[in-house]
């Protein structure tokens, strides 16, 4: 018995060493390009044009101020937040109510519906028909129409269905026996239990909205409605882009998403669920 324990500890240590080697090698591949972005954001345009990859000795923090003003950050960032928050919120709520009965088979043709959602992953891009639809609905150049575009994401549906399947059915039965209704069950039992999956989907879905560039170009022509990505095109040009300012702008643009990710990571990897769900 003693022997086994010792051997286990030794193996675990080796495992840890391998783990760290793997993590650090991979980290190098991730840090390299990201540091290049940071470096670029601190260069002046002429210095970038002369030698794009040289170390940014000049520490030109002015890029950040320039980007903030020229891309109209205060106003457009707010718009982006409104779109991302409201679309994600509506999407998550409607999707859980779609995925739970599908995963459980509580609706007829659950399999057909699931297949339809899987097919949605494959669907060809249909920019012009979608545009004509929104136009005919009278939602062109309208934030509501824009948000409507982001209420579908088959990838999130896949993630949620597969996650809900890991919840034991006995839960439903027990809750129902105690007189819990369907709506209340989903809201107060299922939602908390699938937190890791919801957090994952929230991050992925909101990043998609946050970085979207084509849709606002086409659907929103009123400057009061522009999201921040629409402001960033100030730094791009047909005959060459202002990469340093763009890099600075992107670092600022993605900061809220970083914070969101760091915040939600707790929910994704919380370990809380494992206690409450017993197989």
């Amino acid at each position: 018995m003693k022997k086994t324990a010792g051997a286990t500890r030794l193996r675990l240590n080796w495992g840890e060493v391998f783990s760290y080697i793997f993590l650090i090698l991979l980290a190098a591949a991730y840090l390299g390009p990201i540091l290049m972005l940071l470096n670029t954001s601190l260069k002046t345009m002429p210095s970038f044009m002369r030698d794009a990859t040289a170390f940014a000795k000049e520490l030109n923090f002015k890029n950040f101020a320039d980007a903030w003003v020229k891309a109209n950050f205060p106003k457009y960032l707010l718009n982006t937040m409104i779109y991302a928050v409201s679309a994600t919120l509506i999407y998550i709520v409607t999707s859980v109510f779609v995925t739970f009965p599908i995963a459980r088979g509580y609706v007829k043709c659950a399999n057909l519906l699931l297949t339809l959602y899987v097919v949605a992953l494959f669907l060809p891009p249909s920019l012009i028909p979608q545009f004509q639809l929104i136009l005919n609905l009278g939602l062109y150049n309208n934030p509501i129409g824009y948000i409507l575009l982001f209420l579908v994401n088959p990838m999130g549906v896949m993630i949620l269905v597969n996650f809900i399947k890991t919840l034991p059915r006995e839960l439903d039965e027990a809750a129902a026996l105690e007189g819990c209704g369907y709506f209340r069950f989903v809201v107060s039992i299922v939602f908390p239990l699938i937190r890791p999956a919801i957090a994952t989907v929230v991050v992925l879905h909101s990043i998609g909205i946050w970085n979207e560039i084509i849709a606002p170009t086409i659907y929103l022509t009123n400057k009061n409605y522009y999201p921040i990505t629409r402001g960033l095109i100030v730094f791009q040009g047909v005959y060459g882009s202002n990469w340093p300012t763009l890099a600075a702008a992107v670092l600022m643009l993605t900061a809220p998403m970083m914070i969101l990710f760091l915040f939600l990571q707790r929910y994704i990897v919380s370990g809380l669920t494992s206690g409450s769900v017993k197989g």
Partner: protein
Amino acid sequence: MNYYFGRGGAKLIPYLLLLPGVAVYFLISLGPSIATSLYSLTDATGIQGAPIRWIGLENYREFLFMGQASRDNLDALGRTLIFCLCVTVIQFVLGLAAAVILNQKLRGRNFFRTLYFMPVIYGVVIQGLMWTLFLYPLGGPMANLLRWFGGRSEFLGGQPAEAFAWVIVVQIWANMGITMMIFLAGLQTISSELYEAAVIDGAGGWQLFRNVIWPLLTPSVNTNLTLNLIGSLQAWQLFMILLGYRNGTQVLGYLIYATGFGQTSGSVTTSFRQGYAAAASMVLFFLVLAIGLPVQRFLRRREERILG
């Protein structure tokens, strides 16, 4: 299936609550796509007021069977499959390894998780900029590293096969974080008691993985395989940003975008060809369907076998 929450009218509640989500999906996503499939049989330009004629399968004939252009299209199709295979396999393995390792109580695990996920946050334009700089052949970091070992390379500007390989690397780099996240979320469903029981039974790292983690991860495995497969079949933006429209490197998704929006070369003015672009994207749709659906069916069967 047994429905526990009441009888009769109460059984309709799930339908009622499911309706908004499904209705939006039909309206926003499925409807326009059906319109696209109809467009593919016409010579529509997509311009308001221009006449539209049914031309049957003519667009498909042009894309698949007309002259050298169609043979070039089929080459692109072949490359798409290679790209898909490489990306799916490598991204899956790396993402799984990272998730399993980062699910342990290791020092700095939050840092690594965040780092690996960062590219996802940045979006393609910036991913492209980062790698263009990182792989800059005249004095970029990779070029310097390679020079220490006496090598040199043009990386993204190299021969088509080499450039193509680098896009595979960047694609994996950019999306591995998602795979990792989904696995990490899946790992939370495995109760810690199961781990402990297995460790007490004397299971080592590999056995623990093989007998406990792997089977219980099946739902996440399915999600990831499906997403990687479809994502890589449809990928094109990194090709545009990293390589531009270069012969011998295009994949189907990029080809469709470039022909649909007239960006195959420099400043040439092309036509609005909604119908033809629709046909090309339908070809990709059928390809993804032909690969995706059987894989999906296989994965579902496997899941039923393992999880019951």
